[in-house]
């Protein structure tokens, strides 16, 4: 990602956090010793600082760090919060706002004095404030601090409604009456074509409003993590990586419950109490990390902790007792298969049912939810180092480029990034890759002519498996429609059963195409080639 794009995301995200900080500071002003609120304030400042550090914005990082130190004191009740401390932090938020707007730069002597003064106050620490060594005064509001309105909150239902309306307008195209020669020559046909083309573009843009950033999604869990940690006597911090990545809000909504379950598990069974962590030489504060990334058309979301890891002996017991396996057989199971056992409905490693973990849903329900989205859940765990749940979701609602082709009546697409070459069958072959006849595989009626086009692919091995090597394959298709931009939607529960589709593509004209998962082809029997 280029730096300017990242800076824009930083600016947008920070503005959101700073607005939330204003609200939180106003709340804590009325409830000074509410450690939960101080925890939330700490979290927001930490988020701004973290993003600034990634962009090497030194002033914002240092200011954020000093504000965090104050919050920590009030959060842990090491120092009693004081109304003037809230004012100092209000001033800090105001200064952060100015620095974010100017990419961390200070361009006037007045602002430099403001920065130096506030930093000296913050560095003295809240103890000094309590002793009367700091005088907190509100910073005079600067004009620049009242930013222009860039965003408005819109209800999701309204977006759906707008999408519906735009699609209905598009459908009117189908009922255009026959035009006379005079009307056509008078330019009416061109005008209608232009009009419908713009409508389709509008619909396509509107559909993108359904995207939500993973960072916003992660914010939903901040308070839950804090509450669960407190209930269980754990210290937990929450880190988000790849928060700028966007995904379909309906997809993220379906991940909400599974995530809460995984977070509960992490806090109840994974992250150790602070004293146990200290004894093991770990930071007493545990960490839950949510990381998002894109891999071609896939959205990968990982959620992990740095806790004690999954109890291997409980899993081994399951293999011995439920699957009648010997110790020798168990020792030969791959790590992936070993931890897959946890997804099994009859598996339970919980030694006791707690209010948090024993809610009647196990890991199998989490796996089912991922499967419903056409994705796959993989578990990695290492004793004393932690556990990571990796969700590989074949699609999210996003825009991708595809090669779209026809096999019989079926319109199918494959991400352009997967396609190595397209050639006519009679062209000289450039390799000996196995070639699959999709007509036969998809049950399309045979005709005398062989499919005239050959699409070649070079597939990278799965990143999270040991199979790192590339695979070359080719498929024969009836016709190539061309390169298309598509909005990708999840495949849903019914079609995900086929295990050969990775999503549904919506073209700019509203036509639908199925995204064919070419990666499944090499696993087919030889006689399909």
């Amino acid at each position, binding site marked *: 990602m280029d730096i300017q794009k990242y800076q824009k995301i930083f600016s947008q995200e920070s503005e959101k956090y700073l607005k939330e900080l204003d609200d939180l500071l106003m709340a804590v002003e009325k409830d000074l010793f509410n450690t939960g609120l101080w925890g939330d304030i700490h979290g927001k400042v930490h988020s701004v600082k973290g993003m600034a550090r990634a962009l090497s914005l030194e002033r914002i990082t240092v200011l954020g760090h000093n504000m965090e130190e104050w919050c920590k004191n009030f959060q842990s009740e090491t120092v009693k919060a004081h109304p003037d401390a809230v004012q100092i932090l209000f001033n800090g938020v105001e200064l952060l706002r100015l620095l974010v707007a100017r990419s961390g730069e200070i361009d006037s002597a007045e602002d430099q004095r403001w920065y130096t003064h506030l930093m000296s106050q913050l560095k003295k620490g809240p103890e000094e404030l309590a002793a009367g060594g700091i005088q907190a005064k509100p910073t005079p509001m600067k004009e620049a601090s009242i930013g222009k309105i860039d965003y408005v909150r819109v209800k999701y239902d309204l977006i759906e409604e707008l999408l519906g309306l735009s699609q209905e307008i598009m459908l009117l195209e189908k009922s255009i009456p026959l035009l006379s020669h005079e009307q056509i020559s008078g330019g009416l046909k061109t005008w209608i074509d232009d009009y419908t083309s713009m409508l389709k573009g509008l619909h396509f843009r509107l559909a993108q409003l359904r995207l939500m950033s993973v960072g916003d999604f992660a914010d939903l869990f901040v308070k839950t993590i804090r509450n669960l940690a407190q209930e269980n006597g754990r210290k937990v911090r929450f880190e988000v990586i790849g928060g700028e990545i966007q995904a379909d809000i309906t997809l993220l909504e379906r991940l909400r419950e599974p995530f809460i379950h995984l977070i509960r598990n992490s806090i109840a069974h994974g992250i150790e109490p602070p004293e146990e962590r200290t004894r093991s030489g770990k930071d007493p504060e545990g960490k839950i990390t949510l990381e998002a990334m894109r891999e071609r058309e896939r959205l990968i979301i990982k959620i992990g902790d740095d806790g004690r890891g999954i109890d291997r002996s409980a899993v081994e017991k399951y293999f011995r007792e439920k699957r009648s396996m010997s110790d020798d057989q168990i020792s030969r199971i791959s790590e992936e298969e070993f931890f897959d056992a946890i997804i099994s409905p009859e598996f339970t490693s919980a030694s006791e049912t707690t209010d948090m973990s024993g809610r009647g849903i196990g890991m199998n329900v989490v796996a089912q939810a991922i499967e419903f989205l056409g994705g796959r859940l993989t578990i990695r765990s290492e004793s004393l180092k932690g556990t990571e749940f990796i969700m590989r979701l074949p699609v999210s609602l996003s825009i991708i480029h595809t090669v779209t082709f026809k096999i019989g009546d079926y319109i199918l697409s494959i991400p352009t990034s997967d396609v190595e070459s397209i050639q006519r069958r009679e062209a000289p072959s450039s390799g000996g890759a196995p070639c699959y006849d999709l007509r036969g595989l998809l049950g399309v009626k045979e005709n005398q002519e062989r499919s005239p086009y050959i699409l070649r692919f070079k597939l990278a091995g799965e990143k999270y498996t040991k199979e790192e090597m590339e695979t070359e394959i080719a498929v024969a298709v009836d016709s190539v429609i061309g390169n298309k931009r598509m909005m990708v939607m999840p495949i849903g529960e019914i*079609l995900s059963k086929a295990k050969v589709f990775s999503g*549904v593509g919506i073209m700019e004209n509203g036509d639908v195409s199925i995204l064919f998962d070419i990666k499944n082809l090499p696993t087919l029997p030889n006689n399909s080639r």
Partner: protein
Amino acid sequence: MEWFSFIAADEHLGIETQYIYRVVDDVKITPVPLTPSCYMGLLYYRGELFDVVHLGNLLRQEKAKRKDGEWIILLKWSGKKLGFFPDRVRGLVWVEDQAGSQRIHIEEKETIRLITPDLIWNKLLEFSYGYSKIPENIQPGI
């Protein structure tokens, strides 16, 4: 309680109107390979995707054929979306709440079997999808 009544597989069926999102016709359904014969395809409607089935054929387990001008009943419930073609639409009937009853009587000797969207959905899930059988007569590779 209001019920939408229709004929499918020679049977008079009813579904609660609260599940009906829209009744549409003249929409484009995209066929999907490797699906059972009752599965008609996907419909992209108002920004959402609907699996569309031919209900009569799903119940009879016969090959489905779409006729022009047929209505599709779109259902939305519990986060699921499904469209179905009935063999024939009868209309709406209003009957007093008959809690737990699976059949209601509307006229002399005529009864409607009440079904839920989940019943159709679960029936659809019973079918096999994907490469259930690799045909033997696939053309050889290049």
